[in-house]
């Protein structure tokens, strides 16, 4: 049965050409888009963002007052005060106001050197998320409420974080195993204050993203390590805001045992704002989807239109099984086509971008495999869905239009910043466009305050859940088609 349907599919030249279009669209358009990517900075092409120990792109910019720690040791400090400023435009006013953003950070840190992206572990006080232990850029754990005393101990490559409300009773927060931590590391006090990024609905649809530069200042006392302290503005780009020039530059002032540290920036995984990601190499997916929708629909409506379906059912009277075999064939062929073309488009796109002095944000092998397999699955499930709609509606033009409206249109509406974010999120949860979630390369992190919106490349569902939504739609339509074929005369 499957062999018969495969023979049908490959014996119509236009359908084979439609499948070949998947390659042309995914590889060709992907290469074209990749060749056009170049992010220019004032002094030429932008440098690559630093990468953390896990290989992911990171932001690593903060004020660090540190000294060398050889081998095992510990540091205790008390955060006596923590304040900051937020520049405009904050909601509803256009002045610089006092305040801390939710993930402003003041604390103590063990770091494997002061270069950007070097591994670290820290316990810290935040603007509004209490005491945390964070390490290796992606890890975050909540500490006890009401604590302002912080302690880090280093034993080999393990760093343990503690917090205390009174400096007498200590509560462990977590243990960070920092693989390959050198014997000689830096230990000290730090302050960071990420930009205040918010999105608000635009009157013309979509949303407007606003970022406000911020600065935080913390006073540390009861610092239990003696000796020389060095100040480093880690990840300093050399640029200074007017506030820093006229009011408070980043740095440290010391008054006996009190350290007043001022700084900006963040220590966190980077988001899509850090540069183009692998997703850009899949620009051709829309074209490929339309091609598989047309082939998927015609694969069945052609039979209904010409009465060929009677020949099919006379040769293979088990209608449910025939219609399922057809779904398997169209799904299998488009999966292979999508998988192979994505497997070519990804490395080719990266090569083209890099040979043009650009970069794509790094992605782990697991993520790349997921994106390639996801591309194949989205094309395959969409082809099955279109086929199912064709088999249910039995009208080619109608089914092609309906499938495009169901799969492609919601994706374009949701990601092109046309709809309010709330509506976009629901479209990407409920419609088959949810399947596009496979192409989100960078995960969203709760400890980073970014507006994770569809138009920014962030999807409400995880990749496999998104593809499961498409699969459910496809199964529903194929099921309907089987029911209709069983109940009616051919």
């Amino acid at each position, binding site marked *: 049965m499957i062999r018969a349907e495969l*023979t*049908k599919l490959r*014996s119509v030249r236009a359908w084979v050409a439609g499948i070949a279009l998947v390659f042309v669209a995914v590889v060709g358009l992907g290469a074209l888009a990749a060749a056009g990517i170049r992010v220019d900075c004032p002094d030429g092409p932008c440098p690559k963002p630093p990468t953390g120990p896990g290989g992911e792109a990171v932001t690593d910019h903060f004020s660090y007052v540190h000294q060398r720690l050889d081998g095992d040791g510990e540091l205790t400090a008390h955060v006596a005060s923590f304040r900051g400023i937020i520049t405009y435009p904050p909601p509803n006013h256009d002045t610089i106001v006092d305040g801390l953003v939710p993930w402003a950070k003041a604390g103590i840190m063990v770091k494997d050197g002061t270069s950007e992206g070097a591994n670290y572990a820290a316990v810290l006080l935040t603007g509004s998320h209490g005491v945390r232990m964070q390490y290796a850029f992606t890890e975050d754990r909540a500490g006890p409420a009401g604590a302002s005393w912080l302690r880090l101990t280093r034993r080999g490559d393990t760093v343990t974080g503690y917090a205390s409300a009174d400096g007498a009773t200590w509560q462990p927060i977590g243990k960070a195993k920092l693989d390959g931590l050198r014997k000689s590391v830096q230990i000290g006090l730090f302050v960071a204050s990420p930009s205040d990024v918010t999105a608000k609905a635009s009157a013309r649809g979509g949303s407007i993203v606003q970022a406000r530069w911020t600065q935080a200042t913390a006073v540390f006392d009861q610092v239990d390590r003696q000796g020389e302290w060095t100040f480093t503005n880690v990840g300093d780009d050399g640029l200074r805001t007017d506030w820093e020039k006229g009011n408070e530059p980043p740095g440290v002032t010391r008054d006996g045992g009190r350290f007043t540290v001022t700084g900006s920036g963040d220590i966190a995984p980077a988001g899509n704002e850090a540069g183009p990601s692998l997703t850009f190499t899949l620009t051709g997916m829309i074209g490929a989807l339309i091609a598989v929708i047309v082939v998927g629909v015609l694969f069945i409506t*052609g039979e209904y239109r010409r009465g*060929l379906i009677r*020949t099919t059912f006379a040769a293979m009277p088990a209608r449910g099984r025939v219609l399922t075999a057809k779904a398997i064939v169209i799904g299998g062929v488009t999966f292979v086509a999508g998988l192979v073309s994505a497997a070519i488009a990804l490395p080719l796109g990266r090569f083209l971008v890099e040979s043009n002095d650009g970069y794509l944000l790094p992605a782990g092998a697991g993520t790349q495999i997921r994106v390639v397999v996801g591309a194949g699955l989205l094309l395959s499930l969409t082809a099955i869905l279109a086929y199912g709609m064709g088999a249910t509606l039995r009208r080619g033009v109608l089914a092609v239009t309906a499938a495009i409206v169901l799969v492609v249109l919601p994706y374009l509406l949701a990601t092109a910043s046309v709809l309010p974010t709330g509506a976009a999120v629901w479209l990407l949860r409920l419609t088959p466009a949810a399947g596009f979630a496979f192409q989100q390369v960078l995960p969203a992190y709760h400890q980073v305050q970014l507006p994770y919106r569809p138009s920014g490349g962030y999807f409400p569902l995880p990749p496999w859940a998104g593809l499961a939504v498409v699969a459910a739609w496809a199964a529903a339509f194929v099921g309907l088609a089987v029911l209709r074929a069983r109940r009616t*005369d051919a």
Partner: protein
Amino acid sequence: MEAIIEVSELRKRFGASVALDGMTFTAGPGLVTAFVGPNGAGKSTTMRVILGLDRPDAGTALVGGRRYVTLDRPLTHLGALIDPGALQPGRSGRNHLLWLAHSQGLGARRVDEVLDLTGLRPVARRQANGYSLGMRQRLGIAAALLGDPPMLMLDEPFNGLDPEGFVWMRGLLRSLADEGRAVLVSSHLMSELQDIAGHVVVVGAGRVVQAARTTDLTARFGSLEAAYLELTRGLGVLS
């Protein structure tokens, strides 16, 4: 499996109109059974019911004693020509037969055999939308013969054939019956049928009017055409 098509008390309505009204007849082995009647008499509906394409409201249609839809590799039991125009335009005749062959577990060799048998070999790789009526007819016959079935059911096999094709079709039908197959042929061409059919089933308004040996009818009415006209008077939907 015995080569016999048995239709018994078939009833079917399409909305208000009665298509089959107790259709009952048998087409046995070793002879051509002519299935004749005016347009709308229920011939095509009967054939679709036999193939399991339409579901009857009542009655049974058996192929070698079994319902068609329960047959494994059905084209190896009953070959049918019902709508030779039902082809995918971009697919070649050979590939049309090839997918049918694959659906029955048959290979390309059998496809080439029936292409030779129907004289289609020279145009086999051409796209079906370039086929003449006669070529489509021959392709439909090739499809019916593909499974080398003991039973055949052909709806208007002479349609679109040229004079040479008529001669060929007559010979083919005769030889198929001589090989012991049951061959059910519906047609309006009484003069053609008179020579080749051993048995005639005359239908009108969804039921059998007369089922008899051809020789009996020609003896009684002079010719098959005369018998047909007499027996179906007033039964056509257009009369």
